[in-house]
């Protein structure tokens, strides 16, 4: 299991578009993906639970990947968390 903390810098937080991009990417990986924010946790492959985390700019979220290709998943998904979206 690997995990890392990432700071959200996208000015509008994590709304529909970033969540969509993240979930689509996460769903490609066989390993389990979990995202923790402000005491709540979500299945990274579920856009609904991701939205309920209420991620906003400045939040420090913890990304956990557990299983096959966990390192690659951490790399790619970590980047998506810290990107800026239009």
């Amino acid at each position: 299991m690997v995990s890392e903390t990432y700071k959200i810098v996208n000015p509008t937080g994590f709304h529909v578009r970033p969540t969509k991009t993240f979930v689509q990417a996460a769903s490609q990986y066989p390993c389990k993906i979990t995202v923790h924010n402000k005491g709540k946790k979500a299945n990274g492959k579920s856009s609904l639970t991701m939205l309920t985390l209420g991620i906003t700019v400045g939040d420090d979220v913890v990304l956990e990947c557990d299983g096959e290709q966990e390192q690659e998943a951490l790399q790619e998904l970590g980047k998506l968390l810290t990107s800026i979206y239009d």
Partner: protein
Amino acid sequence: MVVTIIYKGIAASPGIAIAKAIVVKQEKYAPPLSTVTDTEAEWTRYQAALQAAKGEIEQIHQLTIEKLGEQHAEIFEGHLLILDDPELNDGVEAAIKEESYKAEYALHTTAQQFIRMLLELDDDTLRGRATDIEDITARMMSHLRGVKHVDLSALNEECIIVAHDLTPSDTAQLQLELVRGFITEAGSRTSHSAIMARSLELPAIVGTGADIFKIETGSILIIDGMKGEVFVDPDQQLRNEYEAAKLAYDQKQADLRKLVQAPTISADGHQVELAANVGKLEDIERAIQHGAEGIGLFRTEFLYMSRSELPSEEEQYNCYKFALEKMNGKPVVIRTLDIGGDKELSYLQLPKEENPFLGQRALRFCLANPELFRTQLRALLRASVYGNLKIMFPMIAVLEELLQAKQLLAEEKQRLQDEGIAVSQSIEVGMMVEIPSVAISADLFAPHIDFFSIGTNDLIQYTMAADRMNQSISYLYQPLHPSILRLVKMVIEAGKQAGKWVGMCGEMAGDAKAVPLLLGLGLHEFSMSATSILATREQIGLLDRTRWEDLANQALALPTAAAVEKLIIEHC
């Protein structure tokens, strides 16, 4: 006398509409708790409804791309993701197989859990996503029940829609040629229906409450999208008033739209540039929509404030890159950190100063804390390859400060190039003119910069030795005072002599009274808040620059700001 009935709500989208009402009554279906014996069959039934809903949404997605473009269609990609959501479907499966619930009830309870969680969030936009789940659930529910899903695509005349709410799939199916506006019982300024109304430029009123269902289909309605008022079956006089108002409003909108893309040219053919002052990344889109030809002042303080530590080089780089790419080749003037004075940073533990406004702030602070400054410069240099970057140093008083800042910039540029990192070779480097010493000796600075940007907010305060926030002497804050005009002229002349452009990013640039003088004095670039750009473009289009060159010179010889104002009013 017949009293026209008026309903009030939240003004969600401006404009005026006069048309027949079509009232859409959709009952929300809440299934009763019931169980089944054949859970496998029930699960299969659910999956069939899921597939059917998916097929329909895929069609709507396609239709929306064709009718409204990719951006509006994106929300349906989100809907398709929700339909595939493992937590939603696992939840329904468990409810069916373990609790033996009927599919309708299983779907309802599972969806309600997510809806409740979303409604608990602080963020308006995220909370609004509860509507998406309701939209999708309602569609699947119709399939499970074998009933027809309410369809807004079968209209045959111009109308105003009155409904409980308009879901994304509702708005996607609206025949835009016929819908003139809408009114919804629910919703806020940030709900999906409001956002759609604004981007479709349809007047809309939301959050009116249930009273609007007293309106009957066929009644004539007037929507005043600015005031948030609906008039039912208005008399002829009211109708005439609003028809005239609508004509005027629509004409003004059309004129403004033309202005957005137009260059800024005076009546006698002299062109200048209008740019926007922005303080955060979200402002850039608005600037573009308001016709900004560039960003004349990008304040970087937002990166340093409301947080507990300094922003990293990477974080800054991402933000600058975003801004440059968004402006797509149009100039972006980024000002280096302008902190201190009234803008404090708690995590830096800066020593308390008796007089912070005249203290170690902005560039002085950066030069005294070179590591922090170098980080910002590196981030800017790295981002430079993504657009048209111009770097601007604030609050310079003496030449040494400018040269020192340029030296640090050159060192970081060299370092990056040695590391093999690409840096743009055409970054203009300029400075703000806020301190009178610079304005008076602008010619001494001109050889060392590519541009000046006059920061009149502080320039006026320093020149008049008066704090504009101090009510007792704020009357001394006089942008039109001959002294200020003379200082502005000095800077513009120095720029002209040295072949460098001069802009202004203080409020004065967007002040309708000052604009004619600034045009006459030869200012090249006016940077202001986005909302002032179109009006200024319109104003400049009516001004004769040659005439105002003359008038500006006259103004410089006048004794008071009041006299200058009189001159302007007489000749405008």
